[in-house]
């Protein structure tokens, strides 16, 4: 680059020489023309002048040529052949440098203080879709899109203000065809020998990196947006350091200000006190076994509100970051609330149908209370008479008192059972023996069975494991199935009316309850609809019984199904999972 002006000045010296020769000739010609109108005596004079002029020009030329020749001779003689070789090497090196300059896959620009392109390499021009000549002498802003021009100008300005210092920046350029190109530019202003300020710029194409960066930034942005929309944050847990790295959304969910990481103890403080021990147990176990984990818990926010979250973590081994668990945590408060509302609605419905069913059983239940009550009153009267005897018969009196206690308790139990079914109690799952539940229901329907002349067959397996269930809800399921069985046998006149209730364990060792009747049976066309809400074939039916039974059994993790019998009637079965440790 430095060489060009040198070559140029040398060339201008030659021009000057030719120019002065032309000037000389011109002067002679001018004089000739000026003197043209002179009389005939003049030609001699003119010829003389011309001659002198030519002579003078020749002399000058000879003098000049001679000086040059003398110079050359001196050079040739003085420097000998080593110098010649050096020059040759210089020439070669210059050509090489020129080659490098032209084809180095780096774009070079030289612009003046006003931004006019003084020079550009072929590669640089080609990268922008131009030829060198298309750019030379033009404003360099031509290769910047409108929105970058201001930045480009100020970048050059900065260089000009700090002469000799290298500055670098990233900027977007525009090709001739309008496509864009990201570059990283290194630039520096220098003062040329002629005192002119120029800016040298070398730029490398970083489009690919920039695109990757943009893509990354965009995907990060999408991720953040997705996290915000799905209310799911992510976290990384370095178990050793007790530091947790959170995404923005995780900070938002937990209600902390964004920070690079957060201390585990701080996080634990935010967990609902009732859930804290359980969370620590889960994470502690995951840590010691270094296994994936998943759990739901509540957060108690500073304003007293409660959030429900669900977290899942995957055990990883990333030695570079030291992260042991990577996971996601979702704010499921809205879903939990909806679930709770649905559950509430279902419970209300179940309650209504339960009370309706009990209403139908009122006479039977009244009888169940009245029997022990009658016994109590009679025993009390007998007791008084034993005591009134002379002497009082204390042994008999005591016997009647024992009976009174027993029967009073029995009446109380019936009432309590009815009250439990009538009450709208919240879920109370506890380990229970299904056989007990069945016996409790039977005590309420005994007389209903009697009135319908139905004989009850009980086959309760004595060695059943416990099931974790809500007693009242299971009573309702069994009650519904029994009432349906009773109703299905109402029209039966030609055979004994038999209802069977059986408990056993199925092949999967789940508890299975079977209620079988010999009633009208199931019509195949109704098989799919039996469990639909409001499906009924009874004139006074509500059609809610089986639908509620199924939702209760489902909520217990079991299955309720119906099948026809080989003989007359229908069979309903439901299963219940066992009271397993760690069951959700």
């Amino acid at each position, binding site marked *: 680059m430095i060489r060009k002006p040198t070559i140029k000045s040398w060339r201008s010296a030659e021009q000057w020489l030719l120019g002065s020769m032309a000037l000389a000739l011109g002067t002679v010609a001018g004089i000739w023309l000026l003197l043209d109108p002179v009389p005939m005596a003049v030609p001699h004079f003119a010829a003389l002048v011309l001659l002198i002029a030519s002579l003078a020009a020749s002399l000058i030329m000879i003098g000049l040529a001679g000086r040059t020749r003398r110079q050359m001779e001196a050079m040739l003689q003085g420097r000998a052949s080593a110098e010649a070789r050096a020059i040759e090497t210089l020439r070669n090196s210059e050509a090489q440098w020129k080659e490098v300059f032209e084809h180095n896959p780096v774009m070079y620009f030289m612009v003046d203080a006003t931004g006019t392109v003084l020079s550009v390499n072929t590669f640089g021009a080609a990268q922008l879709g131009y030829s060198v000549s298309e750019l030379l002498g033009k404003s360099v802003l031509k290769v910047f899109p409108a929105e970058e021009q201001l930045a480009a100008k100020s970048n050059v300005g900065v260089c000009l203000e700090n002469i000799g210092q290298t500055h670098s920046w990233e900027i977007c350029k525009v090709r001739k065809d309008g496509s864009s190109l990201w570059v990283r530019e290194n630039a520096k202003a220098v003062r040329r020998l002629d005192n002119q300020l120029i800016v040298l710029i070398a730029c490398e194409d970083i489009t690919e990196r920039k695109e990757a960066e943009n893509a990354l930034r965009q995907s990060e942005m999408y991720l953040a947006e997705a996290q915000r929309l799905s209310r799911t944050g992510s976290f990384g847990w370095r178990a050793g350091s007790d530091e947790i790295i959170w995404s923005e959304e995780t900070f938002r969910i937990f209600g902390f200000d964004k920070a690079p990481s957060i201390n585990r103890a701080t996080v634990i403080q935010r967990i609902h006190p009732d859930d804290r021990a359980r969370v620590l147990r889960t994470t502690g176990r995951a840590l010691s076994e270094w296994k994936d984990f998943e759990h739901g818990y509540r957060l108690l926010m500073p304003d007293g509100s409660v959030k429900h979250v669900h977290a899942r973590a995957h055990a990883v081994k990333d030695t570079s970051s030291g992260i042991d668990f990577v996971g996601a945590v979702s704010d499921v408060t809205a879903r939990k609330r909806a679930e709770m509302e649905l559950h509430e609605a279902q419970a209300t419905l179940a309650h209504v149908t339960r009370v309706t069913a009990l209403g139908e059983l009122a*006479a039977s239940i*009244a*009888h169940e209370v*009245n*029997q*022990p*009550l*009658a*016994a*109590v*009153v*009679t*025993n009390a*009267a*007998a*007791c008084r*008479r*034993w005591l009134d*005897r002379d002497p009082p*018969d204390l042994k*008999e009196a005591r*016997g*009647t008192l024992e*009976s009174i206690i*027993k*029967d009073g308790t*029995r009446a109380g139990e019936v009432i309590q059972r009815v009250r439990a079914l009538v009450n709208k109690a919240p879920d109370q799952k506890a380990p229970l023996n299904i056989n007990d539940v069945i016996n409790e229901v039977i005590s309420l329907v005994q*007389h209903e069975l*009697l*009135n319908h*002349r139905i004989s009850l067959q009980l086959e309760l397996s004595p060695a059943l494991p416990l099931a974790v269930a809500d007693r009242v809800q299971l009573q309702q399921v069994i009650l519904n199935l029994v009432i349906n069985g009773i109703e299905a046998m109402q029209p039966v006149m030609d055979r004994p009316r038999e209802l069977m209730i059986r408990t056993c364990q199925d092949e999967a060792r789940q508890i299975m309850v079977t209620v079988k009747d010999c009633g009208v049976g199931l019509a195949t066309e109704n098989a799919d609809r039996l469990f639909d809400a409001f499906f009924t074939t009874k004139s006074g039916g509500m059609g809610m019984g089986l639908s509620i039974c199924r939702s209760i059994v489902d909520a217990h993790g079991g299955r309720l199904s119906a099948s026809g019998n080989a003989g007359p009637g229908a069979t309903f079965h439901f299963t219940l999972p066992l009271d397993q440790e760690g069951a959700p």
Partner: protein
Amino acid sequence: MTGRQASPSLAGAEDPIVFVIDDDSSVREALSSLFRSVGLRVEAFGSAHEFLQLKLPNVPSCLILDIRLPRVSGLDFQAELAKADIHIPVIFMTGHGDIPMTVRAMKAGAVDFLTKPFRDQDMLDAVTAAIERDRNSRDEAKVLSNLHELFATLTPRERQVMALVTTGLMNKQIAAEIGLAEITVKIHRGHIMRKMGAKSLPDLVRMAELLGIGPASGQPQT
């Protein structure tokens, strides 16, 4: 649970017995205790079937029956007893809301009904009345069977004469009616009075009434 309660042996004793049939053992035991406390013999059963296994002793007794019984209802059982010619006063126990059944029971000859829970005195009064009634009907039945036995000792002619005497005819009229001498009628009449153990003519008339002897038949109508 067997329905039998500890009680003195049935054989030999002449004391009245109360029978109880209820499928609920509590009620059964309570009633047993009540009756025993007033010195009544009691036999309790869980079902009508168990009761029927028993050979009923010939003493004044009554039956207390729950109107709702498994398998055979109290009402059906009452009908069954009547068909089997077992005459025992029945007291029904009913629950609330069993009014239609109660009406049917009364029509079918139940002596009383009590709604559970009942007052002990009401129950004892009902039982006492029922036993009294049973004793009376048993006494009547005994008198009747004695009369039948005495009547059986009469000759056919004497039966004929007795029928005519008890309708109020004079000896002369009877003699004319059946073509005997008046004196012969008089002798027959003496035999009849002696054989039947009648102290007077009105006494004999009452006996004829009990035996259902009409002038046309001369035979007892039972």
